[in-house]
């Protein structure tokens, strides 16, 4: 009989330090109560008030925490420069994303989500619920959990907390991806694919975590990092674990060859959700990836660098070459996001402080541009909903100059043109990689950037240089929610391109992970 003599000591919790994501998760629980007890008519306004209030509070908390460095909750959570900064950016992205999700003027029958997700597509139930003007207000509960999960993901300091954060972030998104109001079968298919592949990647992550535990005897990043130099006999086990964990993470950031879900999910999910997902998941997963690579497995850089080097190269070219061939604009942007994952990895493999700063800047810049692009996409519609086929965008500039102009600006940002945030982001990532003697991958990245311009500009060519063919396609007049969201995205894209110094300063102040 074994009697353990260790007593469980309740870990000390610094509530202020963990407040950004705690606020969101608590609001998620509260939101569930609203769903349960509030009358149907009151739910939407109550939920919106709760969501925006919680996000603002979370952003404020993260902003106040900037510069704080502390471990809390039994070292499970590391509050540090990059983590808090990412939390603040995630809160902002969620604010803009929530504004996009709240839009209900563009579709004549309501918002972008099914009146009731449980109704069978095409059934009389569905028509009845739609006619009654119902909303699936439970999306807000899911949304809050997803955003809270993202914020926890970037500060998780052990493998289990990270896994839990990963799931808290992902599960609501799987659900929401399947709840589109239009093209519901496509949406449900996307959700299922996302879920199955996501579960698969979670298994990779968990298996990797188990191997790493076996090799190092710890799940805490500090324990792992301490144990790595002293245990050459378990090096193979450790490396296998690291690779499996990275596979799980690469799936989340949408990096080739684990990117297959991206085009389907981006296309099938409601576009306003795609906007939030594309920006938020990239931020959170890459933030966690950075922590793993720099904090937990920093000592193994010589082992993982060649691996991620190859992944980065493959990812960039798979992304840009596949994007070249797309006719659906959402799929094209999905592949473009794959390519951007590759560019981000170029920054990551430099393994230096400059690399960390550049990736963080890139993430912030990319998140807002992506939000803007997808939100804009949700406005261009014909009788059946969104007009996502590239050809339907012909001559849009003559019909709606402002939309075409904003779209062009955002696409140029994605292409990395100067005076947009995309250029500074690319510049800093490439510069960091060159500083770390990674010139070959930078040359590949530059080649990929040149190819990328072709498909971004194809949209511009269609909008400006072609005459409109169908008269059906038009830009819907959105409510103030989307207008504000778009203005914020575009303005941030411009400011980060013209005057990036403040953000660079902010990132450079504390560009280290603690563990």
């Amino acid at each position, binding site marked *: 009989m074994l009697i353990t003599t260790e007593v469980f000591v309740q870990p000390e919790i610094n509530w202020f330090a963990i407040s950004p994501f705690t606020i969101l998760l608590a609001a998620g629980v509260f939101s569930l109560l609203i769903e349960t007890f509030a009358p149907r008519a009151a739910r939407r306004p109550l939920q919106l008030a709760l969501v925006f209030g919680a996000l603002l509070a979370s952003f404020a908390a993260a902003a106040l925490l900037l510069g704080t460095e502390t471990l809390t909750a039994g070292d499970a959570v590391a509050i540090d420069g990059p983590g808090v900064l990412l939390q603040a950016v995630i809160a902002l992205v969620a604010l803009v994303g929530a504004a996009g999700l709240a839009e209900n003027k563009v579709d004549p029958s309501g918002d972008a989500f099914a009146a009731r997700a449980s109704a069978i597509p095409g059934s009389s139930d569905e028509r009845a619920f739609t006619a009654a003007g119902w909303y699936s207000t439970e999306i807000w509960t899911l949304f809050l959990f997803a955003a809270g999960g993202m914020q926890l993901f970037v500060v998780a300091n052990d493998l289990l907390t990270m896994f839990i954060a990963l799931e808290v972030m992902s599960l609501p998104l799987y659900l929401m991806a399947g709840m589109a109001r239009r093209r519901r079968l496509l949406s449900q298919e996307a959700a299922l694919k996302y879920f199955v592949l996501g579960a698969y990647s979670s298994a990779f992550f968990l298996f990797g975590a188990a191997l790493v535990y076996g090799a190092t005897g710890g799940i805490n990043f500090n324990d792992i990092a301490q144990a790595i130099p002293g245990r050459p006999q378990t090096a193979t086990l450790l490396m296998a674990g690291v690779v499996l964990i990275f596979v799980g993470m690469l799936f989340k950031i949408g990096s080739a060859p684990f990117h297959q879900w991206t085009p389907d999910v981006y296309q099938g999910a409601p576009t306003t959700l795609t906007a939030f997902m594309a920006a938020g998941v990239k931020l959170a997963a890459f933030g966690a990836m950075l922590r793993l690579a720099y904090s937990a497995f920093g000592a193994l850089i010589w082992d993982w660098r060649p691996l991620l080097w190859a992944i980065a190269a493959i990812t960039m070219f798979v992304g840009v070459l596949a994007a070249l061939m797309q006719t659906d604009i959402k799929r094209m942007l999905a592949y473009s996001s794959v390519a951007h994952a590759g560019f981000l990895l170029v920054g990551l493999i430099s393994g230096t402080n400059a690399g960390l700063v550049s990736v963080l800047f890139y993430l912030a810049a990319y998140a807002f541009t992506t939000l803007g692009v997808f939100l804009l996409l949700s406005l261009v519609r014909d009788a059946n909903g969104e007009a996502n086929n590239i050809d339907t965008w012909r001559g849009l500039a003559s019909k709606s100059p402002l939309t075409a102009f904003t779209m062009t600006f955002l696409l140029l940002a994605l292409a990395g043109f100067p005076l947009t945030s995309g250029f500074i982001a690319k*510049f800093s990532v490439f510069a960091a990689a060159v500083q770390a003697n990674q010139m070959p991958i930078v040359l590949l990245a530059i080649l990929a950037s040149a190819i990328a311009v072709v498909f971004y500009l194809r949209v511009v060519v269609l909008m400006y240089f072609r005459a409109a063919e169908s008269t059906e396609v038009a830009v819907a007049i959105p409510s103030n929610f989307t207008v504000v969201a778009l203005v914020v995205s575009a303005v941030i894209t411009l400011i980060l391109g013209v005057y990036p110094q403040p953000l660079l300063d902010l990132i450079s102040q504390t560009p280290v992970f603690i563990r």
Partner: protein
Amino acid sequence: MTNLPYLTLLILFPLVGSLVTFALPMAFGAARIKAVAIGFSVASFFMFVLTALQFELGTSDKFQLTENYEWIAAFGVSWAVGVDGLGLVMLGLVAILVPVVLLAGWSDIADDVAGKFFGLVLLLQAVVTGVFAATDLFMFYVFFEVMLIPMYFLIGRFGDQNRRKAAVKFLIFSLVGGLVLLAGVISVWVNSIRITGFGSFDLEYLSSLDLSLETQRWLFMAFFFAFAIKAPLVPLHSWLPDAAGSSTPTVAVLLIGILDKVGTYGMLRFLLPMFPEASVELAPIALTLAVLSIFYGAIMAIGSRDIKRLMAYVSISHFGFIVLGIFAFTTQGISGSMFYMLSHGLSTAALFLAAGYLMQRTQSSKIDDHAGAFQTTPLLAGFILFGALSSVALPGLASFIAEFTVLLGTFARYPLLAGFATLGIVVAAVYALWLYQRTMTGKPSDAVAGIKEISGREVLALSPIIALTIALGFVPQPAFDVLNPTATKVMQQVNQIDPAALIGGDN
């Protein structure tokens, strides 16, 4: 007065003008919108005159009218502007050509999009002014890339039926060059950090770095590649005939007369000072491409059946002369090249605009459609003849001085090469006179029957260019006074001595 930020204002004037022009509603009236745009370009010209008055002659071995504001401290980037002789001349060329082009293109564009066209031209002016004023490599690069956007729209929206392909081809060539340049720019910066521990994009700082020859070679290749696409040298030229051939004559003037000069300007401003040893070592590559371009351009021009394509090929030939003069590394060759950049801008404008008047009347750019135009529009024919002769360097015109000086400067170091290049002038006479013969003489074709003679506005637009071409042809010295100190400076930077001076020194 001297404390005004002249160069920043020179960038801001057309920028504000472009924003105003874009913002004016259609209801304001197309004619008024155009007038406002031209007003801004004329104001920019006067701003340039004020700037030029502040410029002190003879001291231009240093940048003048400099401004320096911190921009992105994390990368050591500044908003840094300044001019030397070369910069001043290029800014002058921009300031003169834009109002001329806008006036000449007054009725080229449909009224409903005229505001966009004029706004884009002014935007281009602002950006190009930034390119020629920047003394910070990062800032130069930003303007260098942004420059593509207005030009892309100017070609792609307002050209002929092939405009979309031409615009995309232009953009892809330029972007590939630009991205290679970006790799070079980043690499220079990283090298500066490695050598001094301090990263900056300041041109003078970067020029003072002691880069190894190996590094210089790579960086030279990257920069030269980008600049050789911009000022197209064979074999990187194929976008220019398409782009110039498919755009309106006014846009072609901006493209060839101004934008392409950024390539040769970049060689003088950045390439030679930053990588002097590699420039000298690899000069044979540049010289070979230059001579190739001179002949290839001229021969292709003879074979062209399209007026605009012909003129584009002529320009490729002329860019060959400019690059030849630069890489001959003689004071005379370099100042000749810089003078060539000015005179080529003027003669391109004269020929393109005058021929553009004709093409706008006939709605065709085929040479064969224009036979006998002399009989219906003798005056316009005269202007076209002037443009053609100016582009083949008739003595008494600025282009003659330019070509002569370049050849003389090249001869001092490479007599054989210069002699060979001189043959290019003979070929030039063929295409220019043949163009005139095929378009102006003979039996009038259907297309030219009944077309209108050149109007007062059109003459007004051409007159400053023609006056300058003749004036500089007879009295080129003022321009050389401005340019020579820059040439001397470049010679010092690449550590070269005139071969003639060596011989003279022995006596």
